[in-house]
């Protein structure tokens, strides 16, 4: 088990290899379809994402009526491949060093990970409760006008569990498993 602690850096993520099981402690910024489109259209990010990790997630967030504090009730990853057209650009232009999601991403993102020093971290799909438990505070919210699931939520997490499935050296577990399972399938067809 490896640890990735805040503040994150390119050097730290370059150390990570496909297959590593990693616990992340520090900050995550959620961002899914609307955020990626927003950044792709050339809008400035409302928060500096340099050396940060973006999490493909539309969390269920409730606000305490009295204190106004936010609490995350469920926060599993959403399917990442939808961001494939935009992700490389967000990596290049905003300097993010990690992307958390599920299902893996394609060649553009893999190439950007290698070129700019970023890593794709796979969270367990459906594990909304376990992952929400790892979020210790909601520190800020940006672009809330996009709707709660689509906003950028700034979260503090402790020991957030992920697996490296695409590293910054061109390695992709998704490509590997796809190829191996196809070979196995061909044998039994």
């Amino acid at each position, binding site marked *: 088990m490896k640890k990735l602690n805040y503040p994150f850096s390119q050097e730290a993520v370059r150390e990570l290899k496909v*297959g590593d*099981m990693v616990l992340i402690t520090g900050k995550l910024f959620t961002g899914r379809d609307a955020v990626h489109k927003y950044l792709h259209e050339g809008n400035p990010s409302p928060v500096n994402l340099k050396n940060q990790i973006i999490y493909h997630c*539309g*969390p*269920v967030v*409730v606000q305490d009526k009295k204190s106004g504090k936010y609490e995350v*009730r*469920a*926060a*599993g990853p*959403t*399917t990442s*491949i939808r961001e494939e057209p935009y992700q490389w650009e967000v990596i290049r232009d905003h300097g993010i060093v990690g992307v958390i999601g*599920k*299902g*893996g991403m394609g060649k553009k993102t893999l190439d950007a990970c290698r070129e700019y020093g970023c890593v794709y971290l*796979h969270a*367990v*799909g*459906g*594990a*909304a*409760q*376990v992952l929400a*438990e790892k979020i210790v505070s909601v520190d800020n919210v940006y672009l809330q006008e996009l*709707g709660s699931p689509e906003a950028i939520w700034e979260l503090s997490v402790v020991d957030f*569990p992920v*697996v490296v*499935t695409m590293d910054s050296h061109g390695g992709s*577990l*998704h490509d*590997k*498993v*796809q190829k*191996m*399972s*196809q070979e*196995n*399938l061909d044998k*039994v*067809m």
Partner: protein
Amino acid sequence: MAKKKKAAPKKKVAVKKSVAPKKKVVAKKKTAAKKSNPEQALMNSLVELIRKTSAEIPDDVQKVILEALAREEKNTTAEYAMNIIQANIELAKKKSQPICQDTGTILFFVECPRNFDQIAFTKICHKAVRKATEVGYLRQNSVDSLTGQNVGMNVGPGHPDIHFHQHAKSTVEIRLMLKGGGCENVGAQYALPYNELGAGRDLAGARKVILDAIQKAQGKGCGPGVLGVCIGGDRGAGYVHSKEQLLRRLDDTNSIKELADLEKEIVTTANTLGIGPMGFGGKTTLLGCKIGVLNRLPASFFVSVSYMCWAYRRLGITLKGDLSIGKWLY
């Protein structure tokens, strides 16, 4: 849409009876009627069915998940994923919170007697879905396909998706499935012959395309999952029937021998592919496979595959005479 074809008794007369012996239906009696009001009782039963379905995995599914966890090699990403899955199941149950934040398409399958009032049931069912959404058992998960607007309370064209089947018994059985978008997206329908795979119009051809669907899904449907398959039917009925297969208990045995054999073989073979939990690689790719069959036209041979993620949310209840919950079906 095929969903209405099996139901709908035409006689309007019959309608008012058995959903509720409606004595004092209308609004004014609200306060005193709370306890004895059958509408309220049905509403409570449905809200509880939704709560429990969203938060708790049925026993038959839990069993195969634990078996899968035990099977994976220690200190692998596959075991890591299965451990997180198991922890999530326990936590969701303990906290009575949704297992997955995608609370999915809401599919009701209602087995009902003659004279059952489907219109009244549908109305109360919509109310129950709104209520369950308000209190957070369900996410706001229903989007107008033209405007892109989230309708908020999960009620709109096609949502929830209610399937009525009349049966000769006097009981009412309500099964609920919450099927998330990730796994729905990896479902597939094949028209045989399917030349790409050399899949002909027979059981061997069906086997090939089912295995192909598993390979194409990789980990994207949040595996290890379960397949519901329909051989035959038209395109619409085929998909509906494939989902109905997911209502079967995982430990049942298909009454048709060839299908029972095929179900077993698909699971065994799928688990040699090495796709593993979440597509990380590993020993368990598939937890189960259930195959049903419908007649087809001479010109058509469809194989419809629905993939259910590990977060297999499916429970059911029977109703008592007063419309409170009788027993749980899984």
